[in-house]
């Protein structure tokens, strides 16, 4: 009896120590689920989700504070990918209209720009070049189309230009499938 108690206690102590050591030795820095969520987000840093950037939104999702349907630039694809990753049920997008917007980049009307640098401060990815009282311009290849530069502009010289469809970006469309009258199970049973 005593031997059994001693043995079990020794084992418990041993495993306890082992687990304690493992917790320190294999400690995971940061939250891996946040990183996983972040890689699925489009990184436009637009804040349309209500969080100041993609990383804060990823954190909010991971903490269960935010729904997975609040990313308009990512659209349905991102929502489905998040649902898949987190094992949640897909839900309709929060802002359906915003998700339908075509991809666009900001363009500064250089005739009207007064060089106030407000848009430069607003751009989350440093895609606007310029200096005080100098004309500003957008680096189109780096612009994520987040529209954050538009509201601060005092002369409203920034507008969004939809990306033109060209050969390099063209995709074969899925064949169109006309809505067909498909026999339902009942109809099949009735006729058969």
């Amino acid at each position, binding site marked *: 009896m005593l031997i059994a108690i001693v043995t079990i206690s020794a084992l418990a102590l041993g495993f306890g120590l082992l687990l304690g050591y493992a917790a320190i030795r294999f400690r995971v820095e940061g939250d891996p689920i946040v990183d996983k969520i972040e890689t699925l987000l489009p990184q436009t840093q637009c804040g349309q989700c209500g969080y100041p950037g993609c990383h804060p939104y990823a954190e909010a999702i991971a903490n269960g504070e935010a729904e997975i349907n609040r990313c308009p630039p990512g659209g349905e694809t991102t929502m489905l990918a998040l649902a898949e990753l987190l094992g949640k049920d897909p839900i309709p997008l929060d802002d359906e209209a915003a998700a339908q917007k075509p991809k666009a980049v900001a363009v500064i009307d250089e005739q009207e720009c007064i060089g106030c640098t407000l848009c430069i401060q607003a751009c989350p990815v*440093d895609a606007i070049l310029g200096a005080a009282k100098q004309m500003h311009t957008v680096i189109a290849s780096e612009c994520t189309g987040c529209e954050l530069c538009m509201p601060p502009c005092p002369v409203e010289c920034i507008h969004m230009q939809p990306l033109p469809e060209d050969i390099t970006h063209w995709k074969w469309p*899925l064949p169109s499938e006309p809505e067909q009258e498909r026999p339902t199970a009942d109809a099949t049973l009735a006729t058969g």
Partner: protein
Amino acid sequence: MHYPSPSNSHHKLYRFHGGLHLPDNKTQSNGRPARAAALPKRLILPLQQHIGEPAHPTVAVGDRVLKGDVIARAQGLISVPIHAPSSGTVIEIGEHPVPHPSGLPAHCIVIETDGLDQWGELPEPIMDFSTRDPATLRQRIRDAGIVGLGGAAFPTSVKLDPRQPVHTLIINGAECEPCITCDDMLMRERAEQVVAGIAILRHLTGAKSCLIGIEDNKPEAVTEMTRAVASSGQEGMEVISIPTLYPSGGEKQLIRVLTGEEVPSSSIPASIGIVCNNVGTAAAVADAVLQGRPLISRYVTVTGEGVGEPCNLEALIGTPVVELIEQTGGYSGRISRLIMGGPMMGFTLHDDSSPIVKASNCLLAASAAESPDPGPALPCIRCGQCASVCPVRLLPQQLYWYARAKDLEKAQEYNLFDCIECGCCSHVCPSHIPLVQYYRSAKNEIWAQEQEKRKAEQARKRHEARLARLARKEAEKQARLKKKKAVLAKKPAGKAKTGAPDPKQAAIEAAMKRAAEKKARLAAEGATPRNTRQLTEAQQRQIDQADARRQAAGKAEAHTEKPVAEEQE
């Protein structure tokens, strides 16, 4: 005249999975000898005629160019230059309709020809290629703008640098797609040139064995090529007649037929020591090395019931399609669809002002009978015919479901990217489902998503860099403020020893002290302030009154105002 018979009696041939026996419809266009197409008024040269980076224009509007001049240079490794196919003037660099399934325009250089067809300066021919460094020859092939003329238009110089030992060079003369006869006519009419090109390709790849595969529905081409190989005296080069079966002209299928080897999934033939090139490419290589001529023309089949007299034309790259149609009897009125390429893999040409590009092998003006409308697609009945004809042994049905459901990950698991888009599955589908279009759409979607991911990663990095920069700036600002505060806090600490909390106050006190000392010194010397001598009575009265006031005030504050008290002494 007796030609040596094709020597494949002893060569064992293999069979790939599936495939289709199709009516070949080749006799319509291969009955007449190929002829040179007339010089068009305008040549339209798209900057992207190949896989890889588009070429960059080196000419400006208004420049005069000579035949063979470089008008756009290659950008990056996987790219080739573009040459002027005839002499004339550059009249436009801009958007123009091009042969592409999207029907969208693309950047082109437009040359107005002057009718002189005057050659520019060409590089020296390299006749002794067998003693030359392969790198020199590859550079020549690249400079000549040569791409695979079988259809994929991949830069040949890159393909000829496989970076692994190559034991077999396979020359593709199968031309398995119905209606197309341009390779057939090229082999019949220019067998010597093709064989000379093959010899160069062989030298470049270092391949011991060289197999030229030609489908047995082209007996004249087989005969001509056999004769040319025999007269060239090349050892280990063999012309092999293979059974006609679509798509035996697919690179991996031809390799399977000739060698029995299978190229592993998602890798290139070089990984098993094989390089495969088209006969047209071989002829272009011969031109480039032995004559110094760039790739500016090619054989094009113009056929179908929609044109008057189907035949092959040697057309300059950039010739508008409509001009070639005119030279082959014009539209016959029975055309229902103009196709670039063959009936299986070609695509509808939306605008016949589009030019011929390096990869254009055929123009098919198909009548309604030749290209019947399959009608609306019906639901899949899971008959499995698509799987039985697939030359790559894929499961077209599974791919179809996944592509349709946009489950791209699953589609890739089912080896979507091994699909060669030959069209066998769509052809046999009893429900007329356009299967290949589903696969193309899924492939495009996957590429687009990968590109999006790369862009997102870039944006994330830039955003993080920005946040780091802002944090650094804020930290620097804080540090500066702290330093300032520290300096302020330090100064009073230093003055605390002298007992003066404020430097201003200290200065005042020091001045008062000096004044008091002076006064004391003067008093000790017995001197009185000069300004109190020889006073008038009125002045003396004023002073007395002031003294009296001061005294009265001094009494009240005597306990606080020490200096005043001192003065009173």
